[in-house]
């Protein structure tokens, strides 16, 4: 059977989603075109709208519909606290979990010299300007606990000190509800070194 152009195009387009191979893309296509035509239309418009309206906040570079995101525009947030994260998903995670009233800065990546990503590629001059402006007093480094995340945190911390801003790093160690016996050696040794007085 010869498959028509639009169908092939849709199947190929669906494959850009994570975890979607040719077989599942085909299944999605049949579902959308046979049983869920309303849903498909909604999906198409929603996607079109989102693409047209959502871009990066000019202050913190998270995803937003307006030039300035809600957090950056809010008058109630503490503008002297700046939390640096790797992705917009981290902003959501921290805003949900922690009782944090400050602002965010999204790196949209991490320093990874071995992949050719240095301070320039990450456009850290933007953060530099922010720290230079003198509004921020403490920068909280909430990058991932990978080598690249640590290297990024260290780089930004040194940058912050250079501009007289106090850097701090989120703690990492034994997970909540975790049992020591099952914690890996790297985490455990880090947790031990970072112990706190009670």
């Amino acid at each position: 059977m010869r498959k028509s152009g639009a169908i092939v195009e849709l199947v190929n387009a669906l494959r850009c989603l994570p975890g979607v191979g040719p077989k599942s893309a085909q299944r999605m296509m049949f579902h959308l075109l046979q049983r869920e035509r309303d849903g498909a239309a909604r999906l198409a418009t929603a996607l079109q709208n989102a693409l047209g309206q959502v871009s990066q906040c000019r202050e913190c570079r998270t995803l937003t519909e307006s030039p300035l995101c809600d957090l950056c525009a809010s008058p109630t947030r503490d503008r002297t606290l700046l939390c640096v994260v790797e992705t917009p998903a981290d902003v959501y995670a921290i805003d949900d979990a922690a009782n944090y009233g400050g602002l965010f800065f999204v790196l949209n990546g991490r320093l990874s010299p071995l992949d050719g990503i240095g301070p320039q590629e990450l456009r850290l001059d933007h953060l530099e300007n922010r720290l230079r402006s003198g509004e921020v007093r403490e920068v909280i480094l909430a990058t991932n606990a990978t080598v690249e995340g640590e290297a990024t945190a260290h780089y930004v911390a040194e940058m912050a000190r250079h501009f007289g801003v106090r850097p701090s790093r989120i703690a990492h160690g034994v997970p909540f509800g975790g049992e020591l016996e099952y914690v890996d050696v790297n985490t455990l040794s880090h947790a031990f070194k970072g112990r706190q007085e009670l």
Partner: protein
Amino acid sequence: MTETGRILLEPAYLLHRTSYRETSLFLEFLTREHGRVSVLGKGLRRKKGAAYAVFFPFAPLRVSWSARGELPILTDVEVVAAQPLADARALGCGLYLNELILRLLAPHDPHPPIFEVYGQALHRLAAGDEREAVLRNFEVLLLAELGYELPLECDIATGDGLDPGRYYRYIVEQGPVAALPDAGAVRGSALIALRTGVFSNADDLKDAKRLMRGVIAHHLGGRSLKSRELFKYSRT
């Protein structure tokens, strides 16, 4: 050349990991007997906690893989000890070592001495030894093992031994020549320190750093190392 068969519990360090497809990791190891090896860790990103945290560079590991197809597949990994680099500055130096190896050492070219020297360098970084000295020693030993040994014995024009008090111009792949103390010159004491591995003052370290930067750039065909950019704001 690609090897085939099963390799069991080979001593290794992870140099770099990248995501591969949605659930897998592409792992670059430095192993003792097989040199630099790229291994695919299937489904590793789905694992949580201990199974995933293993894949942090610098920790001494024992790695098993099976090499039948194009890309060897990871079959097992054991952690020998926790990764030793506690502070971020040392981590940055570790990244620099890894970048050097990835750029200079070709895959499947076994050099057990490089494996040993790398392990020692990590230990010295962890122990808080003078970082610049550790890096310079590693650079010199790595290049020597790869066949690019630095001629540091004598003045190549006169054949005389190096005078710690004099200045020299270093010609890459040839050696030092006595020169006036201008911007491009290095102290004889810095050259001797590079040869012996013992640095006694900050000036020698500074000269050695400048010299090695040029030598490494030469061997990399003029490309620079990205991990150096991590130290822009560092106070040394």
